[in-house]
């Protein structure tokens, strides 16, 4: 361990705010893109399942015709 105590570890001799800001933002953004990507795939699978479930409709019905351009949660 390069530090004597937890307090010293957090303070990092005054550089703490800089170091911890970086790590916080890094994990925040990497976590956000991961969760968003997982949710997006689940959303698409569910959407496709609903579509194939109601297969009574002909294949080129409006619901089926434009699916290539449906972009879920484009935020």
């Amino acid at each position, binding site marked *: *361990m*390069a*530090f004597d105590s937890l307090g010293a*570890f957090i303070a*990092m*001799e005054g*550089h*703490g705010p*800089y*170091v911890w*800001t*970086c*790590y916080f*933002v*890094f994990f925040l*953004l*990497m976590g956000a*893109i*991961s969760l968003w*990507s*997982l949710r*997006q*795939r689940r959303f*698409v*699978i*569910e959407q*496709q*399942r609903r*579509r*194939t479930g109601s297969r009574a409709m002909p*294949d080129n019905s409006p619901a*089926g015709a434009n*699916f*290539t*351009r*449906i*972009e879920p949660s484009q935020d």
Partner: protein
Amino acid sequence: MWQIFHKLGSPKWFFGIASKLMPWLLWVGAAMLVAGIVWGLGFAPKDYLQGNSYRIIFIHVPAAFLAQSVYIMMAVAGLVTLVWRMKLADVFVRAVAPVGAILTFLALFTGAVWGKPTWGTWWIWDARLTSMLILLFLYFGVMALGAAISDEKSSARAVAVLVLVGVVNIPIIKYSVEWWNTLHQPATFKLTEKPSMPAEMWVPLLLSVLGLYLIFGWLACLRMQTEILVREGRTRWVKELVQARGN
């Protein structure tokens, strides 16, 4: 060899392989990244000059390294799109562009926060920082252009051309610190020489770079799967797969 190449182009085949690889990529990657970061933050010695602020390197370098690697991979995929018209290559470009943008942003952000205590400024318009900012805008451009053209084929070609034109920026980023006077220092890691830091610093750094690489692999597989499901929604294998997963 060509057979593998053609197989790679099959979305169904890719989907299966990706599903098998993903847990490995995620968990091994996360373990390496966390190990590298814990080691770097808590156990690596501080730098004689910068003190503890240098510990930002353990995410700054992985993010910056990945940001450039992802762009190179996208450029290769763009070339494949243009020459071989392989659909999966375009799927890759679309899937990873937002990830590349986030990594570039992280490299710039962590660099700025690191620059304040060491250089004395958050930002300076030197060649390295500016070319990295251009990389971020290239990623934005790729995302915007892809979204703006609705026809799948022309959109794929336009995006591929943009990605390929932008790849000129990559050697500029890499050599900016050697060709011009910059505030940013030259690379610590070089392919041909020993790193100019002791092992107790570069081993955790290498761990976090490799870990982030694997996590990127996981993200790429995940996002490509989503893109494939959207594009191939009409095919029988997707319909079957979707039904099987739901129950």
